[in-house]
């Protein structure tokens, strides 16, 4: 049966994308920002955020929904950066070392998160969210109390005046924008952080390759039907944990890329919003809780951040207060996630109903024999 190009179905599928397109299309001219400024901002933001959003792809493929527990990966990345800055390692070496230090931490945290999520089947997303809060407490315990007292910290510049615990904001000037400026290319008025783009390109290749491996195939199978996968002999629990571990490690690297672009790190708050931003971006890009592709990531990052750039100015022009633009931006991002979740759950029920209707006896199917 040929795929008839049904515009209505296309719109229904990507309702969230369409709404965002309409709003940003309306807000861009109102904000009065120059196209050149917006495009430059978008280029840097794609480099800064894309990697983080990619870390959500695998758990979705494995049927675990949006991994709000990726916050654990972000924490691992921050711990790596703290060590790199403390040892005074400059430039890209510092970033690489932060990743090497953060890797084991991310693997352990990811494995732990996988075990917890396996015990909360059917409500992985909310459990991941609460796990993020819980581990935030553990993170504060380690970074605010153990670092400097139990864990040796060399440079006093980053420790609190009381002698232990890391400062609230950590200057990353030793590694600031080192990845972005590594191979920065100037095309016309725009500066493109090519090194970051190359790293992101590598990640895309990794994901494309991973989907074609046996482990990737197992994850797709589990994502659709755990019972059938189990009876076929696939190790369901173990594969789900591997999906979460990989997602956490990617989030760790993503956070390092994000923070090196920002130039400084809010030690105790930087990771709080990563889960929310990545999820909002992915869902705005048209992904659903059970299906997410690479284009969804890019479309999502562009659309969401276009709104984040433009909305405050639009609010200022329209209502005379930039704050309204910011509130509207936040409200819209939360609404995007809520809408995407509702549409996904509602459609899952509708499909189940439709499938059942097909089997109806009596007048409907005329009945065999």
């Amino acid at each position, binding site marked *: 049966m040929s795929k008839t190009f049904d515009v209505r179905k296309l719109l229904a599928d990507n309702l969230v994308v369409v709404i965002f397109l309409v709003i940003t299309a309306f807000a861009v001219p109102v904000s009065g920002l120059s196209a050149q400024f917006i495009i430059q901002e978008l280029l840097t933001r794609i480099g800064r955020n894309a990697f983080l959003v990619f870390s959500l792809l695998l758990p979705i493929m494995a049927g675990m929904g949006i991994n709000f527990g990726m916050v654990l990966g972000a924490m691992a990345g921050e711990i790596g950066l703290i060590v790199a800055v403390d040892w005074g390692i400059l430039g890209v070496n510092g970033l690489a070392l932060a990743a090497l230090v953060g890797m084991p931490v991310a693997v352990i945290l990811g494995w732990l998160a996988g075990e917890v999520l396996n015990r909360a089947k059917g409500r992985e997303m909310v459990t991941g969210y609460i796990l993020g809060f819980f581990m935030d407490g553990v993170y504060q315990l380690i970074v605010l109390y153990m670092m400097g007292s139990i864990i040796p910290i060399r440079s006093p510049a980053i420790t609190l005046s009381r002698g232990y615990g890391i400062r609230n904001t950590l200057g990353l000037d030793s590694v600031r924008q080192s990845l972005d400026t590594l191979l920065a290319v100037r095309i016309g008025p725009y500066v493109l952080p090519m090194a970051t783009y190359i790293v992101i390109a590598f990640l895309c290749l990794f994901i494309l390759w991973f989907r074609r491996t*046996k482990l990737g195939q*197992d994850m797709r*199978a589990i994502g659709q039907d755990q019972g*059938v996968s189990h009876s076929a002999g696939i190790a369901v629990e173990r594969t789900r944990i591997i999906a979460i571990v990989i997602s956490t490690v990617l989030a760790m690297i993503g956070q390092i890329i994000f923070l090196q672009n920002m130039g400084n790190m809010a030690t105790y708050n930087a990771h709080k919003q990563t889960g929310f931003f990545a999820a909002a971006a992915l869902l705005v890009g048209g992904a659903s809780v059970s299906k997410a592709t690479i284009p969804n990531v890019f479309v999502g990052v562009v659309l969401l951040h276009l709104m984040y750039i433009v909305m405050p100015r639009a609010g200022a022009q329209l209502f005379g207060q930039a704050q309204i633009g910011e509130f509207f931006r936040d409200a819209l991002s939360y609404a995007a996630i809520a809408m995407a979740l509702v549409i996904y759950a509602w459609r899952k029920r509708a499909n189940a109903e439709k499938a059942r209707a097909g089997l*109806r*006896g*009596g007048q409907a199917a005329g*009945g065999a024999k």
Partner: protein
Amino acid sequence: MSNESPLLSFEGITKDFYGTVVLKDVSFTLGRGRILGLVGENGAGKTTLMSVLFGMPVISETGGFSGTVKLDGQAVSFRSPFDALDAGIGMVHQEFSLIPGFTTTENIVLNRESLKAGPAVEVFGERLSVLDRPKMRARAEAAIGRLGVKLDPEMLVSEMPVGHKQFTEIAREINRDNVRLLVLDEPTAVLTESEAEVLLSALRNLAAQGISIIFISHRLHEVLSICDRIVTLRDGRVVKDTDAKGVTVADVASWMVGRDVDDSGRKFDARKLPGAALEVENLWVDMPGETVRDVSFSVREGEIFGIGGLAGQGKLGIPNGIMGLYPAGGTVRLHGKTVTLDAPRAALDAGMAFVSEDRRGVGLLLDESLDWNIAFTAMQVKGEYLKTYLGGLVRLRDEKAMRALTEEYVKLLDIKCTGPKQKAKELSGGNQQKICLAKAFALKPTVLFVSEPTRGIDVGAKALVLDNLRHYNRDFGTTIVMVSSELEELRSICDRIAIVDEGRIAGILPPSAPISDFGLLMAGQKVPEEVQP
């Protein structure tokens, strides 16, 4: 047919679940490349026998089995279905175990994909090798070829017609290189006539290639047309093991259902009952696994009307549909007043009550006390057992009245419990069933539907439950519609028995009718002289 040692042989297989014997000294053999039909009523032991063959955990957990299973002459005992698969024994279930979003090829080679090793394998192990899709497609096409059917290897299972799904699953089982035996459990249940025909010819192809097949089905005409030998099981014993040639459907039906006990001496009091309590016309019910296609019957006032038939034919769908628990259509009239379907409340308000077959799932609130369970429906539907305050604005549970009601039924139905406040989950199966009965009786219904009332309870409790039903019918005149897969039980209590096959009533018989007639109706055949309702 070469007659070297048989591929598979069961010798003296005996199995009991907590004392009730399910398989008694079952022995038969199956030669290479031969098709064996395994028939019998549900509960005759077919599924248990297959679980023994496949080493399902349920067998070892309940004390294992005695006797030996021999494969190619050597005794084998598999600890899990995966061992059986490795030994070349595949099973195709009735409900499909396929991944909807995968293509035919991906499903056929599920978890046995052909792989190309890469550098990552050395570090992280086998699962990081890349899938060799062309090789997978070739293997799938080979398996489909062996089946002799046309299947598009790249089509998604979710977009496949039902017949193709069945073939995909069979192709997956025979895709293993050392497959020697294939077990099919009710494969044609969901197929149309033409699809079933294609399946049967495919199975003949496989047999010709040396694969032995155990074909479990209740469609006796299919069994006769394809099998070389037929083994009939009844109450866990092999009652007949014959060659298929010259056997008719009627023979098999009577072997399946026939009791040795000679019941010519039994007295069936045929009661003359005027008037119609319940009339059902062209009822269809969409209940998963129990689809009712087109059923019409009427129940006389004060009668005990029985509904029998094999599992999955739709007999359970009838009461669930009428009581509005599943989407249904058609017309149902109670004492002349039509009852709206798809609305549980309407059925209850009309004076009908239902004791569900799913005791733990639907029948009980396991975490609540007994008085809650019994009084709940009466409270919600009739507003009984409530104390009203402030002129009816606030209606609170009348704990005292609920306790009195419970104690009344505990005495009446002899329910063994520590008191009205005991949690339902702490009672035995039999007592739980009595609680469900009490819940329905508390509604004082004019028509009572009872579904599988004696399933999974001990013999003593069975007799008590049936006596209570008879008592309520004879003394209070409650019309009862009883659905059960125990034919003997229906014959002992019902005035008339309807047999349901494939979502339709195949026929209605008096309890005194010969056993083979019942067998024929169950197998979907017409009975010579039908008794019109």
